[in-house]
């Protein structure tokens, strides 16, 4: 059986100059700040096959919050799913800072700043560069790749107890097999480990990692309590409650099922870089879908598995997000959003092993270029995590 599985994992992808492997081939037009969205979107409208990442930030941020925004932006430029990047900012200094972090990968990067040129001149010059980059990208060919060259990521959203019983259990088995084959798999959702944090802590590979994990977890809880509030009313969400989840502990225990059974080999902060071969990796992150997927993509994930109970429809502009649901109501009323349907697992008509095979089959086809529901429906959510207000 193991042999059949291995033989079926015939993957193709794009090998970048630094050896990183992607499963998509985007040309990115990256605004450094809110003021540059208009020019970036102007370029993306003119040149077929380019993707702009408009966002509302990048001005008067400082300290760790600024570093995280820069890390998120340059992480998207550095994504193995991206061939080349046109970076546009209002002024040259910060623009160059974001671009130079991307240029370390050896991929084509060009910068443009709007001050002393204006939007129209920038759009003209940047479009000519994007034109050439996109034509070059179109001549790249997929080549055979190994699972062990990939960084992947997981999350669940609009969860309900069908995930803990079925969807996340199947996803956990798929994660175990991917890690066995050498992939790195990122998980996070710091707040949604509440009630099961001890289970993750006990799976950390070393005492130092365990301490680091508990530090991140407690820092998060203290941040909540320092506001003089708690998460009642937000965790579980109204959607979770409608689906049958009653407490954060119940939600967390269901959530954790999808991480499988392997040791946690690394504990990282928001959007830090993950390399292939690290196995299962915890990344500090929000539990909000678009924020977490964005942080994983910034960390180097090239494909995301997203299990949902009630029907979270999130996608991402650069990485395919495979949507998996065991909930029969969601699979029938939101059929166009779900890539892997598992209601038969929920009632026990198929085994966990068969369900994991179904997920991995769609994984292989998606990595090889099959478009996901979220890609087809233009779910291009890109949401930068902020740590505190701007100056």
């Amino acid at each position, binding site marked *: 059986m193991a042999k059949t599985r291995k033989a079926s994992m015939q993957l193709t992808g794009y090998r970048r100059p630094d050896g990183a492997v992607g499963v998509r081939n985007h040309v990115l037009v990256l605004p450094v700040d809110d003021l540059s969205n208009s020019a970036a979107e102007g370029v993306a409208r003119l040149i077929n096959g380019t993707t702009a990442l408009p966002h509302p930030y990048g001005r008067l941020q400082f300290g760790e919050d600024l570093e995280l925004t820069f890390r998120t932006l340059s992480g998207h430029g550095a994504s193995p799913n991206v061939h080349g990047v046109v970076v546009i900012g209002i002024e040259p200094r910060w623009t160059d800072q974001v671009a130079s972090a991307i240029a370390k990968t050896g991929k084509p990067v060009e910068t443009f700043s709007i001050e002393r040129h204006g939007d129209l001149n920038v759009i003209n010059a940047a479009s000519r560069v994007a034109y050439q980059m996109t034509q070059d990208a179109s001549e790249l060919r997929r080549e055979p790749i190994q699972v062990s060259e990939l960084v992947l990521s997981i999350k669940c959203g609009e969860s309900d107890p069908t995930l803990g*019983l079925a969807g996340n259990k199947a996803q956990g088995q798929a994660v175990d097999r991917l890690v066995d084959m050498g992939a790195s798999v990122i998980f996070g959702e710091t707040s949604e480990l509440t009630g099961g944090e001890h289970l993750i802590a006990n799976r950390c590979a070393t005492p130092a990692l365990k301490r680091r994990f508990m530090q991140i977890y407690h820092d998060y809880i203290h941040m909540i309590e320092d506001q003089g509030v708690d998460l009642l009313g937000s965790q579980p969400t109204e959607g979770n409650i409608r689906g049958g989840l009653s407490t954060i502990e119940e939600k967390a*225990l269901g959530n954790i099922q999808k991480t499988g059974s392997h040791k946690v080999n690394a504990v990282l902060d928001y959007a830090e870089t993950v390399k292939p071969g690290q196995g299962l990796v915890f990344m500090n992150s929000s539990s909000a879908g678009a924020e977490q997927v964005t942080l994983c993509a910034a960390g180097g994930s090239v494909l995301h598995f997203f299990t949902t109970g009630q029907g979270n429809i999130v996608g991402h502009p650069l990485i395919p997000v495979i949507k998996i649901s065991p909930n029969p109501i969601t699979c029938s009323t939101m059929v166009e959003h779900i890539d892997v349907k598992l209601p038969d697992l929920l009632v026990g008509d198929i085994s966990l092993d068969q369900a994991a095979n179904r997920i991995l089959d769609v994984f292989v086809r998606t990595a090889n270029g099959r478009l996901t529901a979220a890609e087809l429906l233009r779910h291009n959510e890109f949401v930068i995590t902020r740590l505190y207000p701007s100056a």
Partner: protein
Amino acid sequence: MAHRALAHKSTDDVAVAVADLKAGEELNIQSLEGGKAHQIKLLEDVPLGHKIALKDLPPGHVVIEYGEKVGRMTRAVQKGGFVHVHNIRTLRWDYGKGSKAKSQRSKAKNLKKGGQ
């Protein structure tokens, strides 16, 4: 035969409906991890994804699911009853008010610093 409800462990206090269930249904509820099945007559309607009490659960009872603590009963529910936010509450933030936790924490911080 397709399941109507499932428990994670046979020792759990609650099981989860995997179909929309009606009051009066007689259920034979198995556990994902094996062990003894529970014979339950449903006392209330329980929608897909929602929880059924596998035993009488008194107020204050710490509820076990996945073999772990998932909350505390705020009201009694009988075996076969519906368990949800109307009768179970998280054990986290169990003190009720976050501001209390904050003052307790600052107190702890002050003590660490050698304050009063």
